[in-house]
């Protein structure tokens, strides 16, 4: 990543050289050679991001732990913890061990992590999924494939002591929650079904936003109560597995390193950009505001606050990272809309463009983001209070969650259609104007052709970036679906995709900030203008003094064309 710094300083030098005066943006005034150098540098830093993914392990790790079944002779007394070496254990697969034991006596004990290891704070967060193995016993009928489970779950933590050993288990949280489990019985053809397994779905149990302690202990009970109908439809349980998912420390380290490198870069570019804007005699244009806000949200996303989790217990990190990503995506989507709009709208009135003009366009983003935020607050926000809660367990919650998610999806669809429509209009405008080009003088034509080319180039870059993101995530789903038992592959595609795509958007926004910063270069003199064009051009070029919002000569070109 040191390379990035070098490239960055080269970039700054390039910009210092071209820091002389001119309306329009740097993109239009950069010579083809310099543009290609810049693009190469950006591509190289992009490549570096992909390469960083090579040393990283997969983003998340998994450990499957079989619950130890302990017998609690006094289920009423609750302030005690059962660990793996509890005094009396039973194996639910053997019936004769269970004589005289009631369901309420049984405690499923899971010590996390397994194999005498301990968690590291680099592992960030922890999610637990239950796998309950049910088997058929004659006389037990599956009444409803949706089995309602009542889980009495208690979580404790413990920490390493310096001279070896652990602190005693300390209560972390507890809850009685409900879950639904879908079970199917496959073997209808078999005569004697005794001992055949049911095919049951997984049961998400908890999600911890922070992994502050070294050890966690889950004590899970399945209380049975025929009056309250608790777990009455549950069939014979043979085993319970807990699959715990944690972030991998190696991935977190690589991720934070990426963030720590990008954060100062993006902040420096933002400062440079804002200085550039303020050097002008006009007030910043809407697109410039949008760019600086976009840079700001990216800087917020890049801010490596994960370092704090190494010292503080921050269970809200999951929620916070969702919000940070959400803000960034919302700004990026809004920027694309405004960017497209600013290159299309006819600016006859000379009015200052403001976001107000785009309220219709942006409202779809706003509605979508707000509904996602509410959903996230209901799910991950609730986890702050109760890690065992889930919005999906109650029918009302499921409907609510689905409403929010569908609403967000609809908004995304509307947004996308609208964006496509606008881009199509811009390209139509450009192609119309292209037909006018031959009637211009050669110098101007070359210049316009150049700017048009570069504008299309960046639009292309956006499409490519979005395309790569979508394709890589589809690829990611595919590769994860193909779980290979072959361990010989040393690279982890998932983490390469994550670091690569993350780096790509950073590079993309750095490029936007640099290329769309106002340029100080002067227009090349155009002595060979014919009179008619001169009139038009002077009319056009007189406008920027009155309407300082036109930051791009392409915008003015398109505007001029519209006037024609």
């Amino acid at each position, binding site marked *: 990543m040191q390379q990035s710094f070098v490239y960055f300083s080269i970039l700054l030098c390039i910009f210092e050289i071209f820091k002389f005066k001119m309306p329009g943006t740097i993109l239009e005034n950069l010579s083809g050679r310099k543009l290609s150098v810049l693009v190469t540098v950006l591509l190289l830093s992009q490549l570096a991001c992909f390469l960083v993914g090579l040393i990283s392990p997969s983003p*998340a790790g998994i450990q499957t732990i079989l619950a130890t079944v302990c017998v609690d002779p006094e289920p009423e007394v609750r302030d005690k913890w059962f660990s793996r070496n509890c005094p009396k254990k039973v194996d639910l697969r053997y019936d004769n061990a269970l004589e005289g034991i009631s369901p309420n006596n049984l405690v499923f004990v899971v010590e996390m992590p397994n194999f005498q290891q301990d968690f*590291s704070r680099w592992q960030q967060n922890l999610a637990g999924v239950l796998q309950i193995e049910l088997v058929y016993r004659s006389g037990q009928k599956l009444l409803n494939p949706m089995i309602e489970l009542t889980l009495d779950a208690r979580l404790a933590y413990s920490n390493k002591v310096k001279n070896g050993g652990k602190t005693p288990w300390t209560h972390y949280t507890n809850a009685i929650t409900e879950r639904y489990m879908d079970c199917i019985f496959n073997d209808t053809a078999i005569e004697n079904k005794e001992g055949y397994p049911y095919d049951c779905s997984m049961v998400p149990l908890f999600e911890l936003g922070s992994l502050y302690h070294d050890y966690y202990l889950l004590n899970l009970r399945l209380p049975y109560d025929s009056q309250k109908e608790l777990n009455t439809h549950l069939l014979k349980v043979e085993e319970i597995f807990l699959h715990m998912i944690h972030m991998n*420390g190696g991935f977190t380290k690589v991720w934070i390193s990426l963030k720590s490198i990008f954060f100062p870069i993006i902040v420096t570019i933002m400062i440079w950009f804002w200085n550039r804007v303020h050097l002008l005699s006009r007030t910043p244009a809407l697109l410039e505001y949008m760019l600086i806000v976009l840079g700001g949200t990216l800087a917020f996303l890049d801010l490596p606050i994960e370092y704090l989790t190494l010292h503080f217990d921050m269970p809200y990190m999951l929620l916070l990272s969702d919000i940070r990503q959400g803000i960034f995506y919302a700004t990026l989507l809004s920027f694309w809309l405004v960017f497209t709009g600013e290159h299309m709208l006819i600016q006859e009135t000379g009015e200052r463009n403001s976001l107000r003009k785009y309220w219709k366009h942006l409202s779809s983003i706003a509605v979508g983001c707000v509904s996602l935020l509410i959903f996230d607050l209901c799910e991950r926000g609730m986890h702050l209070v109760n890690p065992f809660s889930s919005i999906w367990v109650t029918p009302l919650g499921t409907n609510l969650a689905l409403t929010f998610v569908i609403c967000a999806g609809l908004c995304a669809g509307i947004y996308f259609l609208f964006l496509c429509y606008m881009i199509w209009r811009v390209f139509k405008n450009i192609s119309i104007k292209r037909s006018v080009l031959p009637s211009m003088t050669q110098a101007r034509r070359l210049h316009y052709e150049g700017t048009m080319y570069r504008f299309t180039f960046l639009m292309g870059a956006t499409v490519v970036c979005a395309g790569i993101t979508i394709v890589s995530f589809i690829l990611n789903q595919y590769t994860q679906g193909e779980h290979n038992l072959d361990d010989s592959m040393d690279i982890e595609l998932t983490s390469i995709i994550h670091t690569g795509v993350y780096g790509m958007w950073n590079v993309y926004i750095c490029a936007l900030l640099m290329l769309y910063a106002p340029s100080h270069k002067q227009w090349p003199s155009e002595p060979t203008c014919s009179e008619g064009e001169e009139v038009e051009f002077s009319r056009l070029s007189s406008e920027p003094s009155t309407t300082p919002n036109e930051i791009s000569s392409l915008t003015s070109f398109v505007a001029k064309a519209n006037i024609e």
Partner: protein
Amino acid sequence: MKQIIINNFVIRTMCFVIIINHSGFFVDCAEANVGTDVTIVGVARNKNRGKGSMWWGIAKAGEPNNISPTQPGVLFMDASVHGTLRRKQRRLAKENTGLLEAVARGANLAINECQYQFRNQRWNCSTKNFSKGKNLFGKIVEKGCPETAFVYAITSAAVTHSVARACSEGSIETCYCEKHYRRPQVFSNANTGAVANVRDFEWGGCSDNIGFGVDVSREFVDTGERGKSLREKMNLHNNEAGRWHVQAQMRQECKCHGMSGSCTMKTCWMRLANFRVIGDLLKDRYDGATRVTAHSSAALKNNKAHSNRLPKNPKLAAIMTNSIHTKRENKRKHKYAFQLKTYNSEHKPPGMKDLVFYELSPGFCDKDPKLGIQGTYGRQCNDTSDGVDNCAIMCCGRGYKTQEVVVMERCNCIFHWCCEVKCDVCKIKKKIHTCV
């Protein structure tokens, strides 16, 4: 050496009331053990046959009475167990605390499953209460017949399954956690092995337990089978087939935990199938087992049929600190690279999931003390069934007697999710057919 074979076909019978024979009515009294058969068989040691299967004996060392999870390491100390193991197996057990308990549980799992799958067959997978390893299933395993193929496959599969389960239980501590990455030097600290293991967990998490199960099963179960005889190739092939089925029956489950719980971040894991499912599949393979024959030695060397087998995990050497493994690594690649030729050359060669045999089964109808077969005398059969438990088939045409008995059975049970709570005792009239 002498041994006693006790064969139990227990009918849960309270009292027989009337027994209806083909010839007429007569009254008989209750009999708990039908067909108890005690034979004394002299054992001739045959060094080449089934020498890798001595370890089966530990099934009886860790008797299923001892069902509560035992303290790891206890079994290792057991002298009677020690005797049945080969040197390499002893070393594996020493290096992996808790492994022997898992293997013992696996062996019992295999016996139970085998007896379940063959409950209606002429050969019913009976075991002898005798701890000298390979004769656990009787001398039938000295023949290269389909039953032997099944026994090898199911024991190997059960060890794989049981070791993988023991890993998730945490009772084997050497299950690997260093995953498939070499950590960059910057992050690794050159401390003791234990600390490095913990740091590896921090860096890249743990790998699937099934990988360890398969590797340990290969090391432990296949250890004796290194000759070039057809019998050893057959054993290796069937052991691999058993493991293949355990791996193939793993099902993937995933959880999305990306932004707002979306699938931008998805983690998947493999779920171990219930062993009954694997037993069913192996039984199917037994029914369609391929007969092979010894082939010309030229064809032995270069054959690619096994090249698509699940690749060997190179990390085994890393967890088992002994350097012998790394030396053997190259040898091991060749160990499984052989192709068996079908007896009938028109049949297609056996794939890695197929069971193979080279001798036809004995009839199992009549007593054969040489092979330790008790015959089907006194076996229960079903007069209406179309399958092999049909009385005509089961009794090999000797005929059968029919008894109508009243059986006390538990019925109308109320279950809670863990335990049977309350049952009525019902008297049920049953017709029982027994081979004469």
